[in-house]
């Protein structure tokens, strides 16, 4: 009896999950086909500017999906998600630099760097999570906000380099006694400069798939149901014996690790990365993707992140509108917010696509 019930429930959830995989794979295949056709025919189908956005868009999709795990599924507001991205970016850059001689094969080096980034993100998640997840609501938001700032300020004064004596790490330029012929990887406020770019669209695509597998399976598992129970009613969940700290930490650390991996991919997509990039605004940007995509809706996060990250860049093409593109972007955000909360519009969409009625709540 229980098994059958379970099976029925899972099939519905996993159908929704498979649609998400389908969307991502279809988008990837479409862009790859366009790129191949473009090369063969010599016409411009995917502009340079769109091509340069592919990898960062993948990173932000992963960021949004992973933050949705904390905000939408676990129900705790986190304002420091960019802090984990930053940890992942800089640890990934250092790892890829140190591994350059050992592993000349770029994709493998990228994969290992992303794993290192994920590990650092996870460690950050544990450090913040253990004391902080005992707090609730606004308190968690404030502490994660502080965490993001702390990470930013630490990396801003961090000097990391290698010379023949080995690995150097210091918190100020005076104490950073690197030999003349050594190479500085992270140079305080200058950030990481001269990074060998390893990131590729395919890597971004694989990372999104891995993220989806991890998040969707977690959500549909026993642990996932415990996490959602905590979100819906903590006292009731505790009363039936759910370990609050354990499940909260599980969701939070998974989210942090995925953000770390996304950060590593992001860092390895540019030849220079500075810590100030991952500030409070970056965290809010990701939160905006999550909220506009719909809290708890994985598909919403994917679509919102992809569209809203690309939008300001697409607006450049409208000639003089480029001057107002940030203004238009802000108006679009307001528009989306109003539209998604408008009952009349929802009813209208429901009438056009009657099937949506049932599927609406399972993004």
């Amino acid at each position, binding site marked *: 009896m229980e098994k059958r019930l379970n099976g029925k429930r899972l099939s519905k959830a996993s159908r929704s999950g498979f649609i998400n995989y389908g969307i991502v794979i279809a988008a990837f295949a479409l862009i790859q086909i366009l790129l191949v056709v473009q090369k063969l025919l010599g016409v411009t189908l995917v502009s340079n500017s769109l091509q340069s956005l592919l990898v960062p868009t993948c990173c932000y999709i992963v960021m949004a999906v992973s933050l949705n795990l904390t905000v939408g599924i676990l129900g705790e507001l986190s304002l420091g998600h960019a802090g984990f991205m930053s940890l992942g970016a800089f640890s990934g850059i250092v790892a890829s630099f140190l591994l350059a001689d050992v592993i000349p094969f770029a994709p493998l080096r990228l994969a290992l760097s992303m794993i290192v980034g994920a590990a650092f993100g996870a460690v950050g998640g544990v450090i913040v999570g253990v004391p902080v997840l005992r707090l609730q609501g606004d308190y968690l938001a404030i502490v994660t906000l502080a965490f993001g700032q702390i990470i930013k300020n630490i990396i801003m004064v961090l000097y990391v380099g290698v010379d023949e004596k080995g690995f150097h790490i210091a918190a100020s330029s005076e104490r950073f006694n690197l030999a003349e012929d050594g190479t500085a990887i992270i140079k305080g406020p200058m950030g990481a400069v001269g990074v060998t770019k390893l990131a590729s669209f395919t890597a971004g695509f694989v990372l999104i798939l891995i993220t989806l597998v991890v998040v969707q399976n977690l959500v549909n598992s026993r642990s996932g149901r415990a996490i959602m129970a905590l979100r819906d009613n903590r006292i009731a969940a505790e009363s039936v014996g759910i370990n609050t700290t354990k499940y909260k930490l599980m969701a939070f650390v998974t989210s942090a690790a995925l953000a770390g991996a996304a950060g590593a991919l992001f860092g390895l997509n*540019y*030849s220079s990365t500075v810590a100030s990039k991952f500030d409070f605004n970056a965290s809010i940007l990701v939160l905006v993707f999550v909220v506009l995509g719909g809290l708890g809706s994985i598909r919403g996060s994917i679509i919102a992140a992809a569209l809203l990250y690309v939008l300001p860049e697409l607006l450049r093409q409208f000639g*003089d*509108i480029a001057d107002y593109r940030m203004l238009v972007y802000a*108006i679009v955000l307001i528009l989306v917010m109003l539209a998604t909360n408008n009952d*009349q519009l929802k009813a209208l969409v429901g009438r056009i696509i009657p099937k949506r009625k049932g599927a609406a709540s399972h993004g």
Partner: protein
Amino acid sequence: MKKKNLAALLMAGALCFGLLAGCSNGNNPGGNSGGAVTIKVGGIGPITGDLAQYGTATEWGAEIAVEEINAKNGPVKLDYRFEDDTGVADTAVSAYNSLKDWAKDAPLVIYGCTTTAPCVAVASETFADRYFQLTPSASSPDVTANKDNAFQMCFTDPGQGVAAAEYLKNAGLGTKIGVIYNNGDAYSTGIANAFIAKAKEVGLEVVATQTYPDDKTTDYTVQLNACKDAGADLVFLPIYYTPASLILAQAKQMSYAPIFFGGDGMDGMLDMEGFDKSLAEGLLLMTPFNASGTDERTKSFVEKYQEAHGILPNQFAADGYDCMYAIYEACCKIDGIADMDSQKLCDALIAMFTGGDFSVDGLTGTSMKWLESGEISKAPVVVKVEGGVYVTQ
């Protein structure tokens, strides 16, 4: 209530489309017109966000030069477009790619970025794609390091620090020196580190080194007190003018009056709204451009700039102006430029800039030349604020 929501939605939508409709597509001439070769110049810099003041200055300064150049009817015309990077590296790379889309197959030269971190990111892209790049103001040596195609119009940060220490030594100013800098900023840290190292070398005594984390800091009394207690009679401030103006005001309040000495980021302080110019009396700063200069070219530039934008140009604008002339004069000297694509033009321009006998006269210096590394070689100028204007020392 529901109706109100829908109305709000429609209003926001109408606003959005109104904006889109109100702005027609820019008109790009392109191609060869009237025998002259048209070179596309794509500028990148922050025109929105915290650093917008610097980006717009470089945008507007270059704009004036482009208008002058195109009015000349010379052998080369410039088709100029400026893209916003908000001062962020990844946006700058997108901006660069959209400039590539804009130029299509026409020869393109990249002008920018205004700030260092985006410039480093874009320079590695232009290096791989073979576009010539000239930055007005990205001053870190990382911008040009290992890239033969990237050139600077401004001094490098360490170069400025070294020049500052040498100037103090030669002028015999300051027996005990204090340094206050922003250790969260590449520009400030770059100058300060080089200055401290060079000061040690030439035998200047640095008695206090104080830092603050970002330019939003408003209280500098701790740093000033440390300098005062150490007995510093000269304080070196390799920082931007907004925090520097606060430092000057707070030093006056605590009646601490050493000589203040700043870098080129200090330029612009006198034009700050609501700034008491008497605070800056006696301030020394190194800037390549003096808006109250009396030579013909500076006067005409300042006049045009003020007419168009209502404010005095600073050194960022002047650097941008000079960049356009450097590109133009180099292009005029290249043989067979009509048949060149961006990549061939890049190689030709590199050869021209590093050839040794190419030099440009501009607002920020005369007979400016470039080294193989991409750094500029021009004489540093120190000015002193006297009676609210710059006086060249």
